[in-house]
């Protein structure tokens, strides 16, 4: 049987991916360039018995999805830079209360209202450091329409597996670009269910670490399961504590959920890197320019390759360290003033120079710019 195909925009594919992953609650507030996600969800969710709600603002939307997730729903919200800033307080709440949810953020020019219709990649640091305090962070940066669909499904899976908010951050080009997409059959891509409690309500504790670093999460209110949820540091039963040893252990466990599972979470693509002397490190739409440039460099006899970041957080530290030990230099094109470059610098530890192409004028980085920079690596 031939598979269903369509010609879709990245944002439309994101909504379809969410539906495949079993999303049944979407709380949103429209904002360019992410509005199409909310549009599709508002049409499709009621058809499958799900709920769509447009809240009074982005903060309300984030609060709505956290509440719905606690009550047992699989949830998503979509936004862009200014909305992501507003959501930060509650993203931190989602981290400490350990609530699975997906935040789909399309990167446009910033800071503040910036350039609503222009592409950017300047929210990648906000994905990790936007909300205060030590907390786990997972952020995926897809580069095509098909990959946006698949990465949204993966984001849902990771959020359930590690009981934590997960971000998907396409840039505006990927979000608004249209390509052919091939839909998987139901069951073809694994969908991770929420780990449900195995104990009766009277014995249930929402942060019971005897079940491991990721305790089961009951659907609040159903089957008699009720528990306390707070943004304060808490004990296993969910009630606040300031007891030093508990707070220390709990904070470390929450961060460890991601840190101890980096190999399970981090995905990347290596393109012509085996013999490469120049490694272009790119993500999102910029990686498409990079691939073009790497091919052009190869035609001119230059040994260039690309390391394409699919998972921005946790950052592929191990892989970049290994590359730094064997390449003559890195070329890092990105639509911000050097955010990924900073992470590469941290990992390269001076072993290989980093040549950045940093663009914040709302124009994409074109292949020629990258090719010229590749040639500068000596």
């Amino acid at each position, binding site marked *: 049987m031939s598979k269903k195909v369509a010609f879709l925009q990245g944002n439309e594919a994101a909504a379809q991916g969410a539906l495949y992953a079993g999303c049944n609650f979407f709380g949103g507030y429209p904002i360019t360039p992410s509005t199409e996600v909310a549009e599709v969800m508002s049409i499709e969710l009621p058809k499958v018995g799900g709920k769509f709600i447009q809240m009074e603002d982005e903060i309300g939307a984030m609060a709505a999805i956290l509440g719905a997730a606690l009550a047992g729903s699989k949830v998503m919200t979509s936004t862009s830079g200014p909305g992501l800033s507003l959501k930060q307080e509650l993203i931190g709440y989602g981290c400490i209360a350990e609530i699975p949810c997906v935040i789909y953020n399309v990167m446009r020019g910033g800071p503040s209202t910036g350039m609503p219709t222009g592409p950017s990649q300047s929210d990648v640091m906000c994905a990790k450091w936007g909300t205060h305090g030590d907390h786990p962070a997972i952020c995926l940066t897809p580069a095509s329409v098909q990959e946006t669909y698949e990465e949204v499904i993966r984001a849902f899976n990771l959020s359930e597996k590690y009981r934590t908010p997960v971000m998907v951050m396409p840039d505006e080009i990927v979000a608004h670009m249209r390509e052919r997409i091939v839909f998987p059959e139901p069951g073809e891509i694994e969908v991770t269910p929420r780990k449900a409690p195995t104990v009766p309500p009277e014995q249930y504790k929402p942060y019971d670490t005897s079940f491991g670093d990721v305790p089961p999460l009951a659907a609040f209110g159903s089957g008699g399961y009720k528990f306390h949820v707070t943004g304060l540091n808490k004990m296993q039963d969910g009630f606040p504590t300031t007891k030093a040893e508990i707070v220390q252990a709990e904070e470390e466990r929450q961060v460890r959920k991601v840190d101890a599972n980096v190999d399970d979470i981090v995905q990347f693509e290596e393109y012509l890197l085996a013999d490469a002397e120049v490694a272009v490190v790119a993500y999102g739409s910029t990686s498409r320019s990079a691939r073009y440039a790497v091919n052009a460099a190869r035609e001119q006899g230059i040994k260039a390759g690309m390391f394409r970041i699919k998972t921005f957080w946790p950052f592929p530290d191990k892989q970049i360290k290994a590359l730094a030990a064997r390449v003559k230099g890195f070329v890092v094109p990105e639509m911000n003033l050097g955010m990924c470059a900073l992470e590469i610098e941290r990992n390269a530890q001076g072993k290989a120079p980093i040549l950045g192409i940093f663009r914040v004028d709302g124009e994409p980085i074109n*292949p020629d710019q990258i090719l010229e920079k590749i040639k500068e690596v000596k």
Partner: protein
Amino acid sequence: MSRYELRFSGAGGQGLITAGIIMAKAASIYEGKQAVQSQSYGPEARGGASKSEVIISDGPIDYPKVTQCDALLAMTQEAANKYSHDLKEGGVLLIDSDLVKNVPPGNFKTVAFPIINTAKNDVGREIVANIVALGAMVALTGQVSRENAEKAVLSSVPEAFLELNKKAFSMGYERAEAAAKA
């Protein structure tokens, strides 16, 4: 590897993004090629500069934007001035002859006919000017067959307007063929 680059440019509200989407859909869904459509537009809903770019290829497409344009549609003088600079030698420029009075110079073939007027007076509705333009671009570029492009048009427009769009597409296709020969 073949890489063919088209740009539909003009003002917001002229339906050029839709025209680009249908061209890419024709190539990628009906013609069996690969295609990517992208766009850029200002914050205005209508009137600001707008462009829609389509890359068509036999193989995977990496960079989704135009590097050197093979075919350009310009529906305003501003668009013709702004975007003809990276039109390839031997490429094709399609303009609305009522709106673009100063034809930009260059080593490319210029085809002109009154696109909006054709939609308004010959098809009967100005709103389908983008489909007239699309028909013309299909004829001039040869990247997708007339049949496949028509299928893409009909699968993209509301059912109540199938005949109107079909007529607009055919008229654009034929006017461009005639204008190119002239």
